[in-house]
């Protein structure tokens, strides 16, 4: 992973000093709230329902054991002993005081971390596949390019005040695990006809009020042109994006308004003017950054799946966990382990400080002291030995973190919702709990199989409900929390936005509605191995609508 040097450390330390000065000027009144708000947002600090919330950047989801321990320390010393991992691979703390934030940023700087540009109308955390650099199906490790884009976009002087937030994702796997289709810019590493590796460029995706799947801007962009091309896209957006209406200010609206072809022409016209003069990374700097992502030297290790067969037969929980939470690795003898932060009584994606420390210890003991945050609000420990699986599972089970929930109905993505968020219409967390309870039996969940159920507390869609097999959206119906159900959303190469099923439900009725959807799926699937998404595609949403509403 990328290791800070003195320049990087000086940078985050000085950024923290800058924010301390800005906070002091706000408290003295020298800066008004209007002037201060964009400045604090560009350091990830929101004013939420009960307190300030700080969103700390975890660049493309990668962190070391020491950094995860450091975040645990921040949760303990400055917050209420827990944190929340997000769909953009960041972490959020909900009980922050403005006056303590400069100290928190200093603490983060000492960990080689920061909260720069995790909010505000600027380029946000670049996200990627949580298995990047460890997956079995990857063209090459995309994280070096994520780091290059991160540095290019950090305090970029031209793009600090965009019309709206800007999100970039990069993937390199045969399966797109970074939801690039739902980003302002999605980059997919790809091979040209001549065998050169470069980027397929997608633009104009996003969630929110007007969800859109990204469209192809360029089929193949050579790596050497990446930064100048990004510069051209951002400049077109900065100049032409709407600034009169925040609901129409995202790049997806601009792309749709002028059409992808006209947008491409505008980007190409700009790019031709700047491609030789704009920032292109010097080869030595590019080499320096990419060199930090060479694969770790993993000692040879032989697989022995039969050794755990007996244990799996004896221990249903271990069997489930191996089936769901262990993913393939590029090197024989190695696997990647998912730690599900999804369990009854746990808000999805939340971890206590002590849990973070324990998981960090596992990465240090059994892995390469590296962890990943996932789009689905879980953690991944890459580079684990297959032969250590039972020991790892046993250690996780002691922590009650050994649920084999990866990809199941229990693996819900849920935004913090009205329990924490100023923007929300409804609470997502109690509903997530009710749905988990409804499918409380592990055998039932395993039998239902892979299914993505996401909950958003409002139309800003931070829970990514548009991209879920079953999406749930909180709405405000005359002051009462109500929930709409959508079906058929997808991430990946065939990304799609889900469609509303019918009238909304009060909270108490949602779990039964979900159960009726699941019952129909189980009744009509061709076999136990036909996944929900395929049954839905085959039957169409009308059958599910009938099933859900007929007894209402």
């Amino acid at each position: 992973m990328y290791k800070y040097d003195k320049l990087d450390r000086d940078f985050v330390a000085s950024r923290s000093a800058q924010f301390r000065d800005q906070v002091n000027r706000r408290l003295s009144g020298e800066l008004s709230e209007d002037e201060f708000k964009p400045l604090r947002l560009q350091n990830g600090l929101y004013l939420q329902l009960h307190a300030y919330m700080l969103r700390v950047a975890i660049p493309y989801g990668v962190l070391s054991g020491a950094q995860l321990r450091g975040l645990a320390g921040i949760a303990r010393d400055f917050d209420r002993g827990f944190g929340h991992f997000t769909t953009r691979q960041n972490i959020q703390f909900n009980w922050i005081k403005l006056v303590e934030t400069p100290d928190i940023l200093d603490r983060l700087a000492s960990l080689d971390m920061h909260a720069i540009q995790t909010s505000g109308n600027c380029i946000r955390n670049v996200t990627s596949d949580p298995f990047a650099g460890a997956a079995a199906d990857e063209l090459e490790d995309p994280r070096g390019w994520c780091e290059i884009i991160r540095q290019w976009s950090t305090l970029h002087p031209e793009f600090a005040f965009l019309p709206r937030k800007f999100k970039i994702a990069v993937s390199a796997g045969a399966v797109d695990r970074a939801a690039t289709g739902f980003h302002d810019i999605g980059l997919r590493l790809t091979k040209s006809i001549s065998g050169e590796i470069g980027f397929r460029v997608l633009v104009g995706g996003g969630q929110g009020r007007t969800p859109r799947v990204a469209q192809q801007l360029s089929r193949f962009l050579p790596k050497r042109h990446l930064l100048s091309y990004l510069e051209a896209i951002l400049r077109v957006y900065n100049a032409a994006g709407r600034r009169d209406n925040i609901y129409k200010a995202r790049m997806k609206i601009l792309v749709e308004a002028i059409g992808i072809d006209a947008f491409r022409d505008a980007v190409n016209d700009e790019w031709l003017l700047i491609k030789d003069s704009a920032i292109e990374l010097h080869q030595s700097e590019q080499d320096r950054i990419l060199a930090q992502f060479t694969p770790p030297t993993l000692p040879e290790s032989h697989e022995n799946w039969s050794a755990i067969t007996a244990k799996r037969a004896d221990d249903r929980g271990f069997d489930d966990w191996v089936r769901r939470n262990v993913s393939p690795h590029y090197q024989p003898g190695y696997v990647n382990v998912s730690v599900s932060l999804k369990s009854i009584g746990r808000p999805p994606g939340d971890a206590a400080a002590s849990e973070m420390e324990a998981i960090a210890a596992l990465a240090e003991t059994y892995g390469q002291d590296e962890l990943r945050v996932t789009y689905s609000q879980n953690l991944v420990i890459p580079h684990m030995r297959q032969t250590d699986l039972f020991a790892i599972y046993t250690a996780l089970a002691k922590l009650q973190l050994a649920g084999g929930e990866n990809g199941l109905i229990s693996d819900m993505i849920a935004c913090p919702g009205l329990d924490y968020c100023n923007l929300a219409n409804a609470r997502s967390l109690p509903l997530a709990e009710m749905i988990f309870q409804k499918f409380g039996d592990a055998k039932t969940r395993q039998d239902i199989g892979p299914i993505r159920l996401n909950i958003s507390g409002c139309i800003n869609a931070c829970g990514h409900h548009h991209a879920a097999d079953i999406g749930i959206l909180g709405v405000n119906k005359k002051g009462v929390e109500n929930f709409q159900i959508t079906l058929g959303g997808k991430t990946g190469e065939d990304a799609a936005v889900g469609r509303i099923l019918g009238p909304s439900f009060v909270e108490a009725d949602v779990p039964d509605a979900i159960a009726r959807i699941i019952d129909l799926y189980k009744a009509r699937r061709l076999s136990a191995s036909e996944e929900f998404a395929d049954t839905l595609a085959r039957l169409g949403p009308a059958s599910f609508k009938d099933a859900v509403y007929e007894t209402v």
Partner: protein
Amino acid sequence: MTNISDRPNAQPQSQSQPQPQSQPRHQSADILITANRLDDGSVVWLGDDLQWWQDRHYAGHFDKVARRLALAKASNSEAANEVTAIYEIPIDGKADVSARERIRALGGPSIVPPKDLNPT
């Protein structure tokens, strides 16, 4: 701070007024005045004594006459960098008992977050 295990649809105990749902909504409904403290973000309500309170039980109800002074006090407080994000809540049986305001009054989420086993 109120007990965070209270369900948010419980009425604040010390309200002496009749059940809000039975009151018709008037344009001239009394209002609550609320904000966030600037330094720590905590939710506060302006009391009858024109001081800020962290407990909604002490929130003042301001009629058309009383609110002019109260809003002026709130505005001065903002100018003095004590509070931010001031807004009014009409006491109309809808806004004041909305899910949002019940949770703000609770002072915390309606669920239980994970517990740190090694607190300092």
